[in-house]
């Protein structure tokens, strides 16, 4: 009886996960989708606690421990998620992802212990191949996901620096191969319990070294990949307990996460392989020559001229980029928008899908400063509007307005759709120097006749602009 109700709970769980994910991929239903999946998860968890029975018909005990764990995890999780600053959310996701991986790895450790006991008691070491294999694979992938996520988390909050040496890729593969070999050996002879810890350590090492050399800016892609790893780890748990909700939920995330990782790469016009083992074809340092070298000529504009231009414009389009986020200038930027509005100037924001360092970065950033959602326009629409703008103000964006993506087939970003700012009458670019952005390449836009440069830290420059415009 109870087991039947539990089956239904799990069925509901699986369906809500699918529906939730589906709704999450549509802006209109995304928030509800998250709640739907959360509701299904709650049903599956409560069902397990109260209705689960093993083959002999015994229910679970240790309820105090279980609820204790749930309470502790729940409180910490909620607080952490509520307190974290908007722009630090990817770090948080990485951290939570690591917890899931660790959870999967711990389950494997405990379950193997059980099995060892059993083997010692009965003296039979055969017939366990399937179970041992699942345990070992779950351990490997859970540990990789845990270690990798921790490194990604450290990189995003600046605690871990990029680190690579020649032959690292080969060393990585050797670690992975050793872990797999140890797993194979364990399957053949499950009495060698120490091998499990060998696997554990090797997998952790692999996870660390796998993420170490990848640039901090690529972490969102890496987190998405590790996310799908943890999904697969959860699926192994499903195999182990013959538990359908773990199995389906895990596979679902494994598949969706893999696709999502590829979609993210595609939005940046790169391949996954390129993200994982080479930075823009490995010629990053080569292409990243300083400004001026190009020998071109660029115009500077003074603060007062810039504020004049803005005050007397009819329509200003602001293009925010990574630099705005770094300078934490979103609040002053909103301030400027309000001052211009008071002067009767229309202001909108042009949001490129990969501006910043994570998908939706600019949306999150500007939302934090209370910029109204209607003023944010996506690339396709706004590209139609540039021609009606008197002025485009580029704040710490670079690659997303680089015309080379359109004109220069040799450029590493060739083919990426860009914001076509040159359709506007005037373009003002704010950045600190002529240095290139993420892709490490020159930007011709800065040398075009329509463009004027306004050097300085975004926050500082915007504050000065606000002050100036008020006096106009």
């Amino acid at each position, binding site marked *: 009886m109870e087991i039947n109700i539990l089956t239904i709970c799990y069925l509901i*769980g699986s369906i809500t*996960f699918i529906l*939730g*994910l*589906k709704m999450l*991929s549509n*802006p209109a239903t*995304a*928030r509800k989708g998250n*709640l739907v999946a959360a509701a299904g*998860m709650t049903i*599956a968890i409560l069902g*397990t*606690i109260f209705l*689960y029975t093993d083959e002999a018909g015994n*229910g*679970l005990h*240790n*309820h105090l*421990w*279980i609820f204790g*764990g*749930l309470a*502790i*995890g729940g409180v910490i*999780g909620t607080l952490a*998620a509520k307190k*974290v600053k908007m722009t630090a*959310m990817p770090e948080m*996701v990485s951290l*939570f992802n690591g*917890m*899931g991986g660790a*959870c999967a790895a*711990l*389950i494997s450790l405990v379950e193997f*212990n059980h099995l060892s006991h059993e083997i010692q008691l009965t003296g039979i070491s055969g017939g366990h191949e399937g179970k041992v294999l699942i345990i070992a694979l779950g351990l490997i992938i859970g540990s990789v996901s845990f270690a990798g996520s921790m490194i990604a988390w450290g990189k995003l909050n600046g605690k871990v620096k990029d680190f690579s040496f020649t032959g690292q890729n080969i060393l990585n593969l050797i670690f992975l191969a050793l872990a797999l070999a140890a797993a194979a050996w364990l399957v053949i002879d499950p009495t060698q319990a120490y091998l499990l810890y060998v696997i554990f350590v090797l997998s952790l090492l692999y996870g660390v070294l796998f993420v170490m050399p990848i640039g901090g800016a690529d972490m*969102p892609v890496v987190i*998405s990949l590790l996310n799908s790893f*943890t*999904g697969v*780890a*959860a699926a192994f*748990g499903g195999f182990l307990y013959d*538990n359908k909700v773990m199995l389906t*939920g*895990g*596979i679902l995330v494994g*598949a*969706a*996460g893999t*696709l*999502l990782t590829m*979609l993210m790469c595609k939005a940046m016009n790169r391949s996954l392989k390129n993200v994982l083992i080479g930075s823009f074809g490995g010629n990053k340092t080569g292409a990243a020559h300083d400004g001026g070298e190009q020998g071109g000529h660029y115009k500077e504009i003074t603060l007062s001229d810039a504020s004049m231009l803005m005050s007397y414009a009819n329509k200003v389009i602001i293009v925010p980029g990574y630099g705005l986020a770094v300078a934490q200038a979103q609040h002053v930027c909103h301030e400027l928008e309000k001052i211009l509005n008071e002067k009767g100037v229309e202001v909108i924001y042009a*949001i490129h899908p990969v501006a910043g360092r994570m*998908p*939706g970065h600019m*949306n999150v950033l500007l939302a934090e400063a209370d910029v109204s*959602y209607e003023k944010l326009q*996506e690339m396709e629409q706004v590209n139609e509007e540039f021609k009606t703008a008197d002025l485009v103000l580029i704040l710490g964006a670079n690659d997303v307005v680089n015309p080379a993506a359109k004109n220069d087939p040799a450029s590493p970003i060739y083919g990426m759709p860009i914001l076509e700012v040159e359709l506007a009458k005037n373009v003002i670019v704010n950045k600190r120097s002529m240095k290139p952005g993420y892709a490490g390449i020159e930007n011709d836009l800065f040398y075009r006749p329509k463009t004027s440069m306004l050097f300085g830290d975004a926050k500082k420059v915007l504050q000065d602009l606000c002050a100036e415009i008020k006096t106009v």
Partner: protein
Amino acid sequence: MLNWITANQQIIYIVILMIFVGIEVIGRVPSVLHTPLMSGANAIHGVVIIGAIIVMGQAETDNFLALILGFLAVILGTLNVVGGFVVTDRMLEMFKKKK
């Protein structure tokens, strides 16, 4: 190996179909939702907590290793689930249209 396929064909079907579902279901996601979607999927794989609960609930009361590791696993799994859903909700809050 071949026998294993027939014996487990239903599971194999479930896995394959689930892969199709996972891929199709998010195929149309606009890029601004990539981050919340990743975060939501992250919360869903927290379903691994169920394994932790089973481990915990079956641990003999004198097996301290199992108790402690299981307890830790429950905490970590809960962090994944609860933190994951809450952080996703906060992200999505910012995408709602303010009218």
